[in-house]
């Protein structure tokens, strides 16, 4: 097993106070270094994070999921011993054993990036059929905009090495970060594979989850970002 002391788990958090504590405790049982980025929560998520014993980085204002993720990655990069970053959702939909498996897979296969997929092998538990269809469309869209073919889209559980973390530098503040992530894989010719993960759609995560119509916003933002890429 790869040394978990060189792994940083990044957990972007926005108003997840009821669940984030348990999620972080579950992670800390395996990974000693967990940083939760509180993206300007208003429900006391920051206290829950502190009580769980994770490192806390607090955005002074709400900036979006992608911005929070990048903050966590920047924080992890400040640790010279960090070799691997794992991104993990705060709402409790991911399983810690999947993260462990991905870290192990990353080093065993000598990859740059491992992305969790809900559609490889194991089935997504309780995934609504409409969401399934939307994700299929999203994979085609991402293939067209980034050139990277995946079986799943916008899956938050990912593991990557320090080199890729340094190159990532995402500028997409909101949920469109997943597409910029794929573009970066393409641009840097990173070695990546998908890894089967299972996701539990609880009552809580379904209530909190993205509304499908928001995919329109994400898609248009991705197109604008592609159009303006490299021009500041």
């Amino acid at each position, binding site marked *: 097993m790869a040394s978990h002391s060189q792994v940083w788990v990044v957990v972007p958090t926005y108003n997840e106070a009821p669940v984030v504590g348990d999620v972080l405790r579950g992670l800390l049982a395996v990974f000693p270094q967990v940083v939760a980025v509180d993206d300007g929560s208003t429900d006391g998520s920051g206290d829950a994070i502190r*009580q769980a014993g994770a*490192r806390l980085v607090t*955005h002074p*204002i709400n*900036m979006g999921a992608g911005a929070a993720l990048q*903050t966590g990655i*920047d924080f992890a990069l400040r640790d010279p011993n960090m070799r691997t970053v794992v991104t993990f959702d705060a709402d409790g939909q991911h399983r810690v054993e999947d993260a462990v498996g991905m870290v192990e897979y990353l080093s065993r296969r000598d990859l740059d990036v491992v992305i969790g997929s809900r559609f490889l092998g194991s089935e997504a538990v309780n995934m609504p059929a409409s969401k399934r269809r939307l994700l299929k469309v999203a994979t085609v869209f991402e293939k067209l905009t980034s050139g990277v073919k995946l079986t799943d889209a916008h899956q938050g559980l990912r593991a990557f090495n320090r080199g890729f973390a340094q190159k990532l530098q995402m500028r997409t503040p909101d949920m469109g970060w997943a597409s910029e992530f794929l573009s970066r894989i393409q641009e840097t010719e990173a070695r990546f594979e998908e890894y089967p993960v299972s996701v539990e759609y609880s009552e809580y995560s379904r209530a909190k989850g993205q509304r499908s119509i928001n995919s329109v916003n994400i898609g248009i933002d991705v197109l604008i970002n592609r159009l303006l890429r490299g021009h500041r």
Partner: protein
Amino acid sequence: MQWIKVPLILAVLLVMVALFQRRQRVEFRAGSRLLALGLGMLAVLSVAFPGIPQAVADRLGVARGTDLILYMLIVVFVLTSLGLYFRLREADERLRRLARSMAIERALNEQGFANPSPEGDGRQGDAGP
């Protein structure tokens, strides 16, 4: 409708995108300022001599001088909106970078860079810088 309008409109859109992608260049900034000066002078002139817009409109085949001014207003409005949109995007990005570095520095100052030491948990970490 004449179909020539489709490529014309597409061409205008393309030129705008190309312009805005190069908007940081000094030529572009100088160009837009000269344009603004020119428009300002035109405004003064057409207030003083109200016949000018109508004369230009007749030349261009537009029915009325007010229509011509409306068209120009639309063009300027679209350009202004796009310019402000891009400027806002950049301002947001700068704000995010600032907030991010503040957040990270504050976290490091408060907790050092040692491993997490939750209250009373006794978890042991390596010494940080």
